[in-house]
């Protein structure tokens, strides 16, 4: 049953020339060619990143050689040293880490509570409020940027970390994702906890939350990545890039000033990609599952 997909092709091909050696050969060679084309497409797809990686080790004079070469005459590790010295990239990393971690923590806390309230608590107006939550997903961030900036001005948050962290932690996506998860948990678990004498808060914290760990992890990774990569809002609300900049902001500024020092820009780009790339490789199974079950990622 499980291998039916692989059975389809021989079934369809058989009546035309069953047993002829040429046919059988082509049935074997065709998937191989297809596979090779797929590999070529993947390689072509990766080529910008490979090129970036290779360029980040090239001596500056050899970057725009004709014909382009993948590797320079030497492997220049100093590019990274110089890129790190030229701009406070480690600080950008630290800032990004702080902002992303705090934002993710806030997202997880509020989403877990609301996801639970929308799935396993009965209260008047629940569905209406949930509809309003979902409707906010339709509002593009760009429409909020100007009024949000004015609000930040009024409360004196321009040029602060909290301006980067707080406004975007309340996306309805988290409530949606966790509600989906909690809806699938059997009611008996609540009842059992109640029989054992646990109140609502205890049931939620000690029984339900530990169960939701995988979903929380998916939400955490999405949230972290979207904070880490966020660009337009930091560009608007942070002026003091040297001290408060995150990675994309720092990279952008670095690029503006160093437009012709491509070897440094590429080294900086490689550094900026490393954390999310690492997350993807480590957690690809969960991430893919999260995208697939929820239908959309943290864009």
């Amino acid at each position, binding site marked *: 049953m499980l291998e039916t997909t692989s059975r389809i092709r021989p079934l369809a091909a058989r009546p035309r020339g069953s047993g002829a050696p040429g046919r059988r050969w082509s049935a074997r060679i065709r998937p191989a060619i297809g596979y090779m084309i797929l590999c070529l497409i993947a390689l072509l797809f990766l080529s910008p990143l490979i090129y970036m990686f290779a360029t980040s080790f090239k001596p500056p004079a050899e970057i725009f050689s004709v014909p382009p070469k993948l590797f320079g005459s030497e492997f220049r590790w100093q590019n990274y040293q110089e890129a790190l010295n030229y701009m406070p990239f480690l600080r950008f990393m630290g800032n990004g880490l702080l902002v992303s971690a705090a934002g993710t923590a806030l997202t997880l806390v509020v989403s877990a509570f609301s996801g639970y309230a929308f799935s396993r608590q009965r209260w008047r107006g629940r569905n209406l409020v949930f509809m309003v939550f979902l409707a906010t997903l339709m509002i593009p961030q760009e429409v909020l940027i100007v*009024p*949000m900036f004015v609000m930040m001005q009024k409360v004196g948050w321009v040029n602060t970390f909290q301006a980067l962290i707080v406004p975007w932690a309340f996306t309805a996506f988290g409530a949606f994702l966790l509600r989906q998860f909690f809806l699938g948990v059997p009611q008996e678990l609540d009842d059992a906890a109640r029989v054992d004498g646990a109140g609502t808060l205890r049931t939620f914290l000690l029984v339900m939350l530990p169960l939701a760990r995988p979903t929380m992890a998916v939400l955490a990774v999405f949230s972290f990545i979207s904070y880490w990569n966020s660009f337009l809002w930091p560009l608007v609300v942070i002026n003091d890039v040297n001290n408060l900049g995150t990675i994309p902001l720092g990279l952008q500024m670095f690029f503006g000033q160093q437009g012709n020092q491509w070897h440094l820009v590429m080294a900086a780009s490689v550094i*900026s990609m490393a954390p999310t790339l690492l997350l993807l490789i480590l957690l690809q199974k969960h991430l893919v599952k999260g995208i697939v079950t929820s239908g959309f990622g943290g864009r």
Partner: protein
Amino acid sequence: MTLLKPTKAPLAEVEATISRGRAKRKAKAEPDAQLGRRTMWGPAFALPHGLGLAIFTLLPIVVSLVISLFRWPLLGTPSFLGLGNYERLFSDPIFGQVVANTVLFVVLYVPLNLVVSLGLAAWLTPRIKGRHIFRVIFFIPSITPVVANVVVWRMLYQPGGFIDGTLQSATGISAPNFLGDEHWAMMAIVVMSVWQGFGYNMLVFSAALDAVPENLTEAAAIDGANAWTIFWRIKLKLISPSIFFGTMMTLITSFQVFAQPFILTKGGPGSSTSTIVLYIYNQGFQFHQLGLASAAAWILFVIILGVTAVQFLGQKKWVHYDA
């Protein structure tokens, strides 16, 4: 015995129905009792999130509408304009071109994204060895910082850059100046954006295709349908809800394109690649006209709402939910 059976059976059934009904009523009654006792927990749990959304999404949307009715400098006092900002936008040929550019981007980008993501999702069937690795590879640019992605592409597109250099050494002809030529710049941005963005849709479509029941495709194959027909006639129909969803999300996000033109072309040459969000950013935070920027943002919002509504109305024609 034989006589008793028929009478006993309905009786048992009646009993069962009654007790089932009782159980149902009980199950219904219990949450109601809960509702009486614990009604404060639900709203209390949802409150922090709801408050956050109210302050940081619902309030700004209203504030945005208010700001758009003012001449609102970055620093200094705002003055009321009424619909002046909107009038200015509608009569400004630059804004007209910005909207046209954005629509052009959407019209080029969305179909390309869908074709590429659907094509690759269909190709990466469970038969393909290492399909998970391929999926991860195609997804990489979706999660790496868009600024870094764009910076690399700038290097590929640049005269003397990778594409130009390769072409020159292979054929002796130099490539067009992709980013400096009005006819090429938007295409260059579209290609880069497809490269960066189709991974999400590919994953969603791929999962939907995996969920197509095998007995359906198998039956069709036995009836003599080839792989091509099976894909077009059966699989595509069955995954149409995913395609609908993917199309809608892609449409919405593609109207918001910003980082690509911002770093690749700065909207140029001329204003041939300036998009609505780039315009919002420039007006608001370069020229300090927050009112005008807000009005432009609201026009963007209305466009997105309109396109989404049209999508929803059109879905009945091609989306099949009865799987």
